[in-house]
């Protein structure tokens, strides 16, 4: 095959005479080639050829082409995803083909669409943007269901429909719920999530039931053995794939009766039973574990018995179909037979096609005299009205009875819209429903409607509308109470056929074309003033009464709808859809035609906004064929209203998701609403937007861009010039610049979206880190306040956030500290935070403010190592002092007083108060006296920890040490000041020890010593007297007041014995002498 070039072959085929056997040969060869090449080649061919041949008349080439479509969709070797994507391209051509008159194309279309239907369902389950394809499939399903029941459907098309409906039933039923057993080629309801925006599993299941019912009715009532066997085969597949339908299938088989069968052939009955048997045997063979195995075996036995009975009858007698089974679906065209009255009695007329029947009826009536006919009709009528058995009157009566062929009335709702374009084209014949006793004849054709003058039309609409207003409501209620009506089965937006008719009369009945307007002008010339105008403005009220009328009718409809929008909005939907469609039609004919839709849609929207509830308004807006420009402003207004905000969101969300043309605009509105000054509106918008992050594109990208820009705007300095684009980028709700000093609510407007989304994805905080240093300090403060809750929600273990904290840019320390603070406030820091801060300290040399968060989690050695850094943070501000104080309490072990048996956790880890105090003293050189002093004074503010005995032990420590820290004496002073009872110990023990340590060698210490002695006088005097002479002299020189006191003390203690205290007197007395 490698040598064959598909394109060259195609060209060759094309060069041959169209539809010739030679061309057929070449094409069939080409098809065989295409089946062996990679599937992209036929796909490519189709892409190029299909558009141009789609609308060509039937030809061999066209048939070949569409058969190739079938091949690509059903058979070509591709994986299911590829196949589905490619298949979607063929949905529209195939739908068109569905309406083709040629059964070949109809069959092909149904076969192809039958394979596409499940796949569209499957992708719709996951991809919510495929609604449009699903809608097409629903329409196709309706169409095929009609074909399945319509009496004139060609048998081949019917067989294809049966298969199509089988696929539908499979989709609309539930297969295995275990996802591992899901086969993408056999999708079913379990594929569909319960919260799907437009696929409702319950409703889908109900639709499936409806289809199953229709199939079952066909199965039991159809008279063509081919239809029956085809259904048996398709039921066989259903039973095999859907455990839940096995029971249905075998029951249907067992209950099938050959009585309705067309033709008395033993073969047909045997074939049917045989086929059933094969299907059931196949089922049990392929599903040895089946739940219904025993029942199926039982059903097989029953079928065998039935078949035996049939066979026992030998030459089976033809079972004449009863008149009750008037399903005339099994029509096989028979050749014309001579109308011979003697055989008519036994002939089943319902098997004939309508044309032939009509002919027979006409021919038969020709043979009958008029009187005879009258009598017969009378007799028949009376027999019907009397409800008695029909009187045996001649053959014609029989014909009458027989020809009551049930046929579905053609619903104008399902007529193709395109048909409406040709207003002059003959309408399809409306056949009367069999219920109509007077007219129970199929041959009857409605005459073409009489053309009406414009005035007549207007009057008709007027009266119709009035009737609607009077009785509309009752009727609607009544109708809803009677389900199963044809129109409802079609799933049309309104069940009211006449509503549609009325709306159509209004939208296009009166002056739907320019010609009609002119005609109206002429006609209405005389009585222009007849109709009272209700004051409404019409474009040309005086010149064109027809337009005025048109306007008036629409206004009436408008008023009616607005009278109770909540229950009448569907009429508005219908009406505006009609208007829109009509506008399109008119525009095609007259490019300058007046457009009604735009005007009325605005009117209705404005009026309905105040008179609707969430449900009605959103449904209405979403059903509009085209969204007017003003809609978004209206939605903005709605969103600003706290009570109506949900309505706006309910509308905006599907607009963004499902209506791609307005997505951009709707999304912009939503994003801007995220920065609305009103908190509720903001929250509503954020809530709506959140769901698209992070997977739903392109929304996610836009969300990211917008929030980033919001944050960046915060950082733009107030004096920087902004171009117009930047100014407008954030929409109308934000001021051009951030107000300084910051207003918290305004900052919230900028920030709330990012913060809310950051809970889902902390990367939304990234711009904040980046720009934080350039933000105004007051704004920074507000930002920090706002951050608390989202940060709490994100939690300390989010890797992204940790990453940002780790790599924060210079200048945003305060932000990082704030976040760390949030994580550590009131609780022990998480392991992740400890690691983070440790690495910050190690790698980035972060300052001690970071230490505070984790210091309590460190061990003793680490604490001691980091302590100077911590103390170094003190700068005299109370905040820092408070922080340090907190830290001290967390790193110091409080001695347990209560129960000594308690296990002291962390005892070894933590510092003893004494140790801390000593550390603080030891670092006085490192951090500077001032800071050390500040730190120690913090300790003195914690009397419950640094009790007097602690202080004593500290002082004792230094007394035993080699060198004294500078602050030692200061500490002593503090201790004495704090604990009066320490005075005794200090004055005696401590001071003496200091003297032995020659405290005077250090001037500062010495000064302190003197101060201390002064504070503790007179207890200190004993100690002072131990001072060497020079030092004592120095002391009294510095503190002359003490000299007197000392002398007094000395005198008191030793009397005037100068000899004993000669040395002191020498020092103390000098002064006396001099003063004396």
């Amino acid at each position, binding site marked *: 095959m490698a040598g064959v070039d598909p394109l060259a072959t195609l060209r060759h085929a094309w060069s041959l005479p169209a539809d010739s056997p030679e061309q057929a040969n070449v094409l069939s060869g080409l098809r065989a080639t295409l089946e062996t090449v990679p599937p992209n080649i036929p796909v490519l061919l189709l892409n190029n050829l299909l558009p141009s041949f789609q609308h060509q008349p039937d*030809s061999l080439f066209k*048939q070949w082409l569409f058969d190739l479509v*079938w091949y690509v969709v059903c058979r070509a070797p591709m994986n299911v995803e590829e196949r589905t994507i490619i298949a979607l391209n063929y949905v529209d051509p195939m739908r068109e083909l569905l309406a083709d008159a*040629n059964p070949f194309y109809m069959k092909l279309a149904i076969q192809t669409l039958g394979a596409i239907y499940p796949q569209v369902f499957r992708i719709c389950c996951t991809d919510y943007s495929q609604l449009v394809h699903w809608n097409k499939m629903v329409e196709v399903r309706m169409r095929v269901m009609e074909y399945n029941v319509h009496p004139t459907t060609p048998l081949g098309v019917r*067989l*294809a429909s049966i*298969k*199509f409906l089988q696929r539908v039933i499979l989709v609309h039923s539930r297969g295995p719920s275990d996802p591992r057993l899901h086969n993408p080629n056999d999708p079913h309801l379990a594929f569909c999530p319960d919260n799907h925006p437009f696929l409702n599993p319950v409703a889908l299941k109900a639709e499936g039931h409806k289809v199953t019912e229709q199939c079952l009715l066909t199965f039991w009532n159809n008279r063509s*053995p081919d239809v029956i066997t085809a259904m048996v085969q398709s039921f066989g597949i259903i039973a095999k794939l859907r455990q839940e339908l096995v029971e249905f299938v075998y029951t249907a088989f067992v209950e099938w009766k050959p009585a309705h069968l067309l033709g008395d*052939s033993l073969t047909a009955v045997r074939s049917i039973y045989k086929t059933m048997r094969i299907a059931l045997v196949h089922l049990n063979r392929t599903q040895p574990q089946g739940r219904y195995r025993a029942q199926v075996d039982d059903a097989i036995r029953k079928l065998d018995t039935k078949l035996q009975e049939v066979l026992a009858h030998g030459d089976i007698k033809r079972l004449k179909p009863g008149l009750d089974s008037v399903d005339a679906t099994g029509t096989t065209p028979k050749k014309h037979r001579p109308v011979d009255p003697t055989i008519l009695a036994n002939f089943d007329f319902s098997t004939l096609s309508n044309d032939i029947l009509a002919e027979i009826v006409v021919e038969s009536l020709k043979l009958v005299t008029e009187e005879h006919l009258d009598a017969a009709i009378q007799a028949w009528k009376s027999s019907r009205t009397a409800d008695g058995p029909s009187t045996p009157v001649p053959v014609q009566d029989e014909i009458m009875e027989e020809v009551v062929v049930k046929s579905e009335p053609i619903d104008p709702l399902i007529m193709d819209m395109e048909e409406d374009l040709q207003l002059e084209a003959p309408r399809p014949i409306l056949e009367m429903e069999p219920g109509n006793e007077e007219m129970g004849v199929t041959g009857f054709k409605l005459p073409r409607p009489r053309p009406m003058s414009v005035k007549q039309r207007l009057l008709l609409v007027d009266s119709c509308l009035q009737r609607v207003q009077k009785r509309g409501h009752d009727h609607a209620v009544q109708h809803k109470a009677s389900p199963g009506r044809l129109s409802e089965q079609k799933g049309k937006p309104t069940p009211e056929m006449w509503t549609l008719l009325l709306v159509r009369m209004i939208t296009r009945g009166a002056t739907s074309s320019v010609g009609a307007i002119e005609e109206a002008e002429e006609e209405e010339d005389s009585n222009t003033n007849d109709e009272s105008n209700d004051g409404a403005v019409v474009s040309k009220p005086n010149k064109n009464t027809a337009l005025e009328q048109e306007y008036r009718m629409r206004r009436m409809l408008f008023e009616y709808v607005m009278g109770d929008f909540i229950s009448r909005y569907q009429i508005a939907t219908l009406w505006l859809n009609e208007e829109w469609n009509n506008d399109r039609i008119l525009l095609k004919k007259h490019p300058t035609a007046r457009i009604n839709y735009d005007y009325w849609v605005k009117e209705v929207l404005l009026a309905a906004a105040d008179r609707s509830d969430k449900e009605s308004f959103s449904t209405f807006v979403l059903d509009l064929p085209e969204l007017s420009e003003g809609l978004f402003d209206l939605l903005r207004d709605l969103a600003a209203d706290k009570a109506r905000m949900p309505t706006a969101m309910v509308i905006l969300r599907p607009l963004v998701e499902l209506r791609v043309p307005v997505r951009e605009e709707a999304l912009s509105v939503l994003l801007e609403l995220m920065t609305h000054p009103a908190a509720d509106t903001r929250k509503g918008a954020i809530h709506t937007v959140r769901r698209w992050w992070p997977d739903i594109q392109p929304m996610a990208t836009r969300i990211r861009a917008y929030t980033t820009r919001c944050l960046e705007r915060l950082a733009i300095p107030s004096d920087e010039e902004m171009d117009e684009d930047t100014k407008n980028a954030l929409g109308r709700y934000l001021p051009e610049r951030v107000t300084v000093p910051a207003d918290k609510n305004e900052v919230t407007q900028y920030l709330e979206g990012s913060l809310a989304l950051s809970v889902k994805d902390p990367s939304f905080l990234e711009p904040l880190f980046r720009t934080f240093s350039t933000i105004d300090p007051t704004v920074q403060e507000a930002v920090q306040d706002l951050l608390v809750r989202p940060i709490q929600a994100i939690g300390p273990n989010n890797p992204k956030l940790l990453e940002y904290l780790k790599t924060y840019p210079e200048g945003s320390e305060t932000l990082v500290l704030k976040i760390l603070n949030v994580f550590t406030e009131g609780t022990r820091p998480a392991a992740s935070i400890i690691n983070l801060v440790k690495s910050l300290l190690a790698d980035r040399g972060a300052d001690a403010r970071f230490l505070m968060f984790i210091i309590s989690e460190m061990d003793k050695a680490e604490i001691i190592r980091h302590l100077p850094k911590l103390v170094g943070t003190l700068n005299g501000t109370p905040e820092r002092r408070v922080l340090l104080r907190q830290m001290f309490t967390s790193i110091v072990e409080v001695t347990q007083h209560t129960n000594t048996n308690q296990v002291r956790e962390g005892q070894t880890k933590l510092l003893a108060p004494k140790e801390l105090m000593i550390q603080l003293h030891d670092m006085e050189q490192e951090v500077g006296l001032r800071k050390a002093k500040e730190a120690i004074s913090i300790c003195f503010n914690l009397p419950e920890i640094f009790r007097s005995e602690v202080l004593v032990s500290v002082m004792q420590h230094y007394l035993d040490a080699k060198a004294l820290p500078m602050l030692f004496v200061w500490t002593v002073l503090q201790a004495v000041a704090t604990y009066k009872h320490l005075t005794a110990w200090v004055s005696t023990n401590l001071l003496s020890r200091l003297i032995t340590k020659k405290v005077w060698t250090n001037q500062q210490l010495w000064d302190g010593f003197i101060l201390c002695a002064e504070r503790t006088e007179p207890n200190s005097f004993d100690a002072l007297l131990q001072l060497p002479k020079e030092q004592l002299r120095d002391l009294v020189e510095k503190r002359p007041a003490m000299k007197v006191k000392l002398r007094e003390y000395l005198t008191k203690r030793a009397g005037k014995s100068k000899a004993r205290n000669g040395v002191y007197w020498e020092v103390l007395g000098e002064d006396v002498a001099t003063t004396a």
Partner: protein
Amino acid sequence: MDPRRRDPRRAAQGTPSVAAQIPTMAPPEHPLGGQSSEDASLINNASLRRHQKRRPLFCIVCASNQNRSMEGHNVLQKAGYDVISAGTGSLVRLPGPTVDRPNVYQFGTPYQKMWEDLHEQDAALYEQNGLLNMLDRNRKLKMAPQRWNETRILADVVITCEERCFDAVCDDLLGRGSDLNRSVHIINMEIKDNHEEALIAGQAMLDLAAAVSNAEDLDEEMDNIVQKQIMKHPHNLLHTVAFY
């Protein structure tokens, strides 16, 4: 016109002599054969009438794709119809020297090879019971017997030669899952597995094929065709519509 006529496998297997045996590519009674050259638009205006009719592809199926199905294949092909054939058995079984010693081959073994094999075994015996003759005919029609379950060509009408085969064909189609949505008529013609019956049945098949080919709309007329076939020929028929 039927693309499946040019199935690659057939092309690969077909011997040059096959083509030579086909007298004409067109069916003898193509009802619309003359119309193809007419103005397409004229025909198109003839509303529902289908002016371009696909030539149906027949598939004749028996157990071993040797006697009955190949006889059908033979006559239909000679008459110019599009036809393929297959067997539903697991193996190809031919009578051996005694009843309990049949000759068994895999599907796909060329007829030529079987002929040589039997010829070597006992030329006289197999000449006498007609096997060599049959294989000789078969090897001129196609390369080797094909198994139904492995056939992937889609036929429009499948004619099975006994109920067992009918069951097997239906069962196999159910087993395939019928994902292609394409309908197929399966007709069973009860034929005894001997040369004489096969010959008689061949003629019946020819009638059936003619009726099928002449049908304006095959689906629509199939029932009548089957009815007529019953009237005309002694074979018991079964008929079902199944799906590929």
